[in-house]
């Protein structure tokens, strides 16, 4: 019993660390990636040295070269900001909302299989759990939009909810195909099933499950992956589906009225959600912690499995950012059209295809 408690505590601590580190790294990456795409430099000045100097009061700011400590400095700045609650706001709900949004994201982190020996909560229905718990964030967003007594906030919250509720359907259906192939909802087992060469990954038809015949799954799995990726963009309110917080339309959507740390928490939660979304993609389609080359996995280098996992996730996050800085934003009705008229029929088709395959070819 004690062992479990200790282990749980350690896992929780690691995950808290992971969430904040992921947030900080993602924000830094976002700035650098966008700068790279727009022919700019991005943050350049704030290195760890100059940040430390600024904290102790020295006035030298020339130590950084690539601005590594920029997001840390931003976090420090946001911490010191005044916590403003608008006059007409519902104070209790206004303050509760960011916590719920963050809680929803953070709870999803618990089931991520970082490595075979490190799954903080190895739940039998891991995938189902993540899908369920991330819907909790929606209520936080609604709460934030309503409680801040701002019409833009309310519009943003309503948009966000409609969007998330709709896009949960194609996500669910596209993931069910994988579940059918694996025959399990446990994320850990799904990853284990993809060990070995990279063609064992579900994206390439999961040869390990089915032998060479699995190759017929390749096209639908690509479609499935694309659909899942698109939907996860929408679920996490990223461009081109960032209409709930479209800064040129709704100012900032549901977090218009938030300042300081509460705003930062929304941001952390957002980047956390992006991490979770892409982590699921990596787990289900891209082989999780497997490197795709058996020799490397068998070498048993300590700590390499989580590293591979996180690297893969960040590669996907880079794609997310790439998409954001390239594409314009859709309109609300076009967003709904895309979901109901294109994505859902396509997922149903892949679902059907996989069913046929499962019933007749295995």
């Amino acid at each position, binding site marked *: 019993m004690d062992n479990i*408690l200790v282990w749980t505590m350690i896992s929780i601590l690691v995950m808290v660390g992971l969430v904040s580190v992921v947030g900080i790294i993602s924000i830094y990456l976002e700035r650098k990636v966008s700068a790279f795409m727009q022919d700019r430099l991005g943050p350049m000045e704030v290195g760890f040295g100059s940040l430390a100097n600024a904290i102790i009061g020295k006035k030298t700011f020339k130590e950084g070269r690539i601005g590594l400590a920029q997001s840390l400095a931003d976090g420090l700045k946001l911490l010191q900001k005044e916590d403003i609650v608008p006059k*007409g706001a519902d104070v209790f709900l206004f303050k509760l909302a960011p916590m719920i949004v963050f809680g929803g994201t953070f709870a999803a982190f618990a089931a991520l299989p970082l490595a075979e020996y490190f799954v903080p909560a190895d739940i*039998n229905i891991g995938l189902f759990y993540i*899908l369920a718990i991330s819907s*909790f964030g929606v*209520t936080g967003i*609604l709460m934030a939009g309503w409680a801040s007594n701002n019409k833009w906030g309310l519009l943003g919250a309503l948009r966000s909810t409609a969007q998330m*509720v709709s896009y949960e359907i194609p996500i669910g259906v596209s993931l069910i195909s994988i579940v059918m192939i694996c025959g399990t909802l446990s994320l850990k087992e799904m990853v284990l099933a993809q060990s070995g060469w990279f063609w064992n990954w579900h994206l390439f038809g999961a040869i390990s499950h089915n032998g060479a015949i699995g190759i017929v799954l390749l096209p639908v799995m690509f479609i499935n992956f694309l659909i899942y990726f698109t939907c996860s963009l929408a679920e996490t309110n990223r461009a081109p589906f960032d209409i709930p917080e479209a800064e040129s339309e709704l100012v900032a959507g549901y977090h218009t009225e938030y300042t300081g740390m509460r705003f930062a928490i929304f941001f952390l939660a957002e980047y956390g959600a992006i991490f979770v979304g892409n982590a699921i993609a990596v787990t289900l389609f891209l082989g999780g912690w497997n490197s795709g080359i058996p020799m490397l996995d068998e070498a048993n280098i300590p700590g390499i499995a989580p590293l591979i996992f996180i690297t893969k996730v960040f590669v996907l996050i880079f794609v997310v950012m790439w998409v954001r800085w390239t594409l314009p934003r859709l309109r609300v009705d076009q967003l709904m059209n895309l979901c109901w008229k294109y994505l859902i029929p396509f997922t149903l088709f892949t679902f059907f295809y996989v069913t046929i395959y499962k019933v007749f070819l295995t």
Partner: protein
Amino acid sequence: MVPADFVFLILATLIVACGFVVVFHSKIIYSAFALLFSFFGVGGIYILLNADFLAGTQLIVYVGGISVLILFGILLTKKIYNLTTEETSTQKIIGGATSLAFLGALAALIFNTDWQIVTTTQEFTPQTLEIGKAFMGNFILPFELAAILLLVALIGAVIIGRDEKKEEI
């Protein structure tokens, strides 16, 4: 006291407290949010009872679906610039009598049931497989009927929604 009892106490408190808020709070939006947390607590109880799939379903359907729908309804009907949308209770006597009668019935039920107390903590066994087998085996007919019902409801909703729009134009 084992940890499970402790967790149960927390969850039970959450459910009951939120239930009180649902009933007694004057602002309807608070009631809706409290209902949501109440659902959430129920999901927790399911987990304690080793019903993992049920807990997940509870979260997806009630927390992610129904509560959001209720909230949506409230947000769309009540004016945002009027935060004091308060509900008052009328017919206090009839309401009180009904609830007292209901309480009595529940209490009778509780005290008359022969509760079997399991003393050992059961080993956690996955439920999903069994549920799946049950759905596709013995209970295939109700399952399919429910599916058809939902489909009909969905199509009906689409038709109703579409008609209204035509009138507008």
